């Protein structure tokens, strides 16, 4: 299906080898892997599904160790700026904002050169409507 180079031999071998390994307790089902793949805009091949299912269950089984911790009274931390910001010289705000002024941006022609398809002004796409 992919017109590109297939998986390198190391990975191909690994996938074959793991197809027979006993699976960890099931957290995710094949159907939910399909749903998540659709959310992530990934078209998994029939060959990829079993190994992804096995790996996700193994990883989620490991992640379940976090349930041992009582975190009811702990505030979530999305990023470390709250710890680091206080150390910044002359910056007291938690989220310092830059001045709202115009600055030169990337050259349009240079940006469009990287695109798969353009008309010189816009990126070109296949039809948006499915039918």
């Amino acid at each position, binding site marked *: 299906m992919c017109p590109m180079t297939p998986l390198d031999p190391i990975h191909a071998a690994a996938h074959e080898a793991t197809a027979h390994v006993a699976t960890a307790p099931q957290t995710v089902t094949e159907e939910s892997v399909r749903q998540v793949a659709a959310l992530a805009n990934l078209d998994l091949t029939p060959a990829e599904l079993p190994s992804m299912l096995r790996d996700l269950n193994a990883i989620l089984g490991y992640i379940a160790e976090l349930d041992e911790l009582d975190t009811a009274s702990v505030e979530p931390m999305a990023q470390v700026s709250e710890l680091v910001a206080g150390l910044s010289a002359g910056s007291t705000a938690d989220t310092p904002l830059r001045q709202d002024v115009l600055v030169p941006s990337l050259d349009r022609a240079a940006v469009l050169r990287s695109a*798969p398809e353009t008309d010189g002004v816009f990126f070109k796409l296949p*039809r948006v409507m499915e039918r």
Partner: protein
Amino acid sequence: MTNATADLSARPLAQLRDEVVSGTTKAAELTSGYLERIAARNPEINAYLSVATESAQAEAEAVDAAAKRGDPLGPLAGVPLGIKDVIAVESMTATAGSRILEGYIPPYTATAVRRLKAAGAVLLGKLNCDEFAMGSSNENSAYGVVRNPVALDRVPGGSSGGSAAAVAAGMAAGTLGTDTGGSIRQPASFCGVVGVLPTYGRVSRYGLIAFASSLDRIGPLAHTVEDAAVLLKVIAGHDPLDATSSELPVPDYVAESRKPVDGLRVGVPAEYFGEGLDPEVRSAVEKAVDALRQQGAMVQPVSLPHTRYAVPTYYVLATAEASSNLERFDGVRYGYRAPGANTLGAMYRQSRECGFGAEVKRRILLGTYVLSAGYYDAYYRKGQKVRRLLAEDFQRAFTQVDVLVTPTAPTPAFRIGEKTDDPVSMYLADIYTVTANLAGICGVSLPCGVSSEGLPIGAQILGPHFGETTVFRAARAVEQSLR
């Protein structure tokens, strides 16, 4: 080999620069020497994905011309460096080790690289890595594995495997890598070089192809602590193009690193020396601790009680951020577009299916799953809460000690193919490194011994936010005593 490159790794980077400025070494000869070394060694090691022969020679000749005129020259004048392929350099490809970015040439240059060039550095090319920096062995690159220069049947570590291998094999005087969960320190450890994780916000991330934005850092790899300190000094500092970059002034890391460690408080966390640690690694790291003690440091045990939860926390948060960041690879603005898809949705799905490798898909699926309705609280929010507990562990420890000394990785470099069939076992290669990323603190890995099989062993020295000066001081003291 020319005289200029007779012993590429033995001369400090600052000395190379001074020789170029004084004219005793020609930058052009130095660069040619490195290019010859790359031509000789890269075919078996596969550290470089692209070599910028012409622009490197032109840059080196420009430095020589400036030196001859007596123009003021920067702190890296004529010093040949390599850049990990997840970092944008205008006019060089940036594949991120992925098929989806094959042939992509970014229209701009990362701030860290712009600073290297402004300091006079010569850019030799772009370095192999795990796809989108996701991996601990460099076996996830779409462009083939990198081999460890010390033992060719071993992995160089990952994800900055090319950056570590290039330094170890004398194919660059120094390199830039990136570290989201250990990706500079662990390969530095496996290849026997020095690697630095700067504090979050110390080095601008502008121009870094994002993996997990709250964890990603750019940092240097080099032969010695002092070389790494020279490189960090150049790339560090505030950048208006990265809103998370710090305005704190950048210290003179080299001068600071030369101060004595007499009276330095060194913590040894018991949780980093438990089950799963290779006895030879333990013994080598204990020698590094002894070296600090003999130079007057005060060594004491400390506890980081939540350590065992770091890897699962990391794989929730890093994959969640990755699933979001990697949505941008959709076949529209850059990179691979699947041919023949006749609707937008099909084009997205087919381009991503064909463009991404197995580990990247695995992490996108996991990240999408932990963020999805019904699982967000159980996984993502839980992970964010444990992240705070892990950060608080370090905050408490750094009220008692100035630095922590630990192993960088539980074992020396493993064999190519040894862990590719078991993601959890591969993830455990990062067990001692991921926590520093979650907490935003800084650290360094430096060589502290060699295993009975001749493989390098790395010690990790961790410091608090913006504690790079103290970390370099301790690292240099260990380096000097083990030399």
